[in-house]
């Protein structure tokens, strides 16, 4: 698969990464190379093979649905770039 500039722009938008217009050409080439490299997997016969989601041979552990942690807003907010009255602050999202 060879990626064009528009596709790279779309992926960057999905990934919420600002990419400058003048970087698109270079990125398209680089990403296309990588895709060509990984596409050699197509030659492997995987009929009837179940996808491996985890190497850990275990059932997902369960626990009671109860609060086990929390009640320290100061610690949660300690690294916030912007905060007011115990809240994280973001740009206005509702017009």
């Amino acid at each position, binding site marked *: 698969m060879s*990626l064009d500039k528009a*596709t*790279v722009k779309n*992926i*960057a*938008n*999905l*990934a*919420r*990464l*600002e*990419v400058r217009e003048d970087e698109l050409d270079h*990125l398209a080439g*680089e*990403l296309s*190379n*990588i*895709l060509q*490299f*990984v*596409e*050699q*997997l*197509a030659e*492997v016969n*995987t009929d009837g*093979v*179940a*996808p*491996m*989601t*985890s*190497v*850990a*041979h*275990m059932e*997902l*552990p369960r*626990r009671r649905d109860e609060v086990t942690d929390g009640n*320290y807003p100061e*610690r*949660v907010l*300690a*690294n*916030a*770039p*912007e905060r007011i009255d115990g809240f*994280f602050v*973001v*740009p206005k*999202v509702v017009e």
Partner: protein
Amino acid sequence: MSELTKLTMAEAREGLKAKRFTAVELTKAHLAAVGAARGLNAFVTETPDLALERAKLSDAKLAKGEAGPLEGLPIGMKDLFCTEGVRSTACSRILENFVPTYESTVSGKLKDAGAVVLGKTALDEFAMGSSNETSAFGPVTNPWKRKSDPSVKLVPGGSSGGSAAAVSARLVMGATGTDTGGSIRQPASFCGLVGLKPTYGRCSRWGIVAFASSLDQAGPMTRTVRDAAIMLGSMVGYDPKDSTSANVAVPNFEAALTGDIRGMKVGIPKEYRPDGLSAEISKLWADGIGMLKDAGATPVEISLPHTKYALPTYYIVAPAECSSNLARYDGVRYGKRVEGKTLDEMYAKSRAAGFGKEVRRRILIGTYVLSAGYYDAYYIKAQKVRRLIADDFAKAFETVDVILTPTAPSAAFGQGETDDNPITMWLNDIFTIPTSLAGLPGLSVPTGLSADGLPLGLQLIGRPFDEETVLKVAEVMERAAGFTAVPAGI
């Protein structure tokens, strides 16, 4: 260079017990070495005051006979482990001012065992790299030099390059690494160290900055196999806070070092001998096989037929998981923030300013292979091939007890020596990635020097949760190889 910094962990443990020196003296000797070696750029953040405070506590515990297994031993902590009250950057601009309010499980266990942390060691940004050159805080220099040209600055390997350089230069006795595709084993090979990636699930991932969650695993980097066994013992164990943490018994790893490998079958995979394999690495491998034979083990040729697909599989699975994991860096709750007119603009600008080139590349690839229309063709396909790779190993372990391969295709290379093609750099991990995909324990042990005087390591791969066999065989090889070379100036 103080005599104290030349000790192994095992020797220092005895010295402290016998009161030949104190933990404070041991820590001060290592802090002096850290101060004298800043040119290596091995540490991102030094914590000398905290270290001295901890060393005093260690001396008090030693005096009361309450010493932990690592009491008073100076170590380095890869800056991917969140440490309470100490900046934890992952060597990324996006986390350059991040001070965790909690402690990772593994770093907490090491502190509880009495280890004295001298600071946070450098890595490739978010552990994505094989040379430590993608760090936002500059490259790390390998303390080893080429005989032919000592002026060339070599890379320590990556991603755990700061840890490797620090242990190799005798700034700390051991250090933590994390390994997703080879990030403990390859730098260990480049710096003449023992590096062990345990079985997936052996060490808790809780509090380690996530890269690829189905692959990430913490492990020790030390100068001897015994030290690796000692340090590993204080890193492992079940942790309910990590849903993939394995609830299995923790053996006494040091007790596994019996020196007796008679009758053991050692798999030699024929697919690890690609056409371009250097004569030097081939010879290293053959010498290693000879050492095991001499010790009474039997080499057995095995086949791991899907080996050549491991790298492309990894470069779908790892970027996919990376793009999901790194979605959390949005400039809202922590990390770098660049203002924008809208929320989306703020996200995009913050992430563009915070992530370096290699990280951005992997996020974009990961986003693409997970996107609608491509998910089955790339991601699901890779997960299927991953199973075939894991099955290859399972089949091999029906007949052999351990597998021996080279760790890396070359010795340490020079800073800036690799070309612009990212795949060239990725080829460094060609021998370590299959083990990671299969979740198996892998260890690199130094067994020889290149013609240019640089260390080279061999990799031992074991069955799931059989770190004991890996360590046992590694110690036999360590003894047979008699690897006593040290970097210039040590």
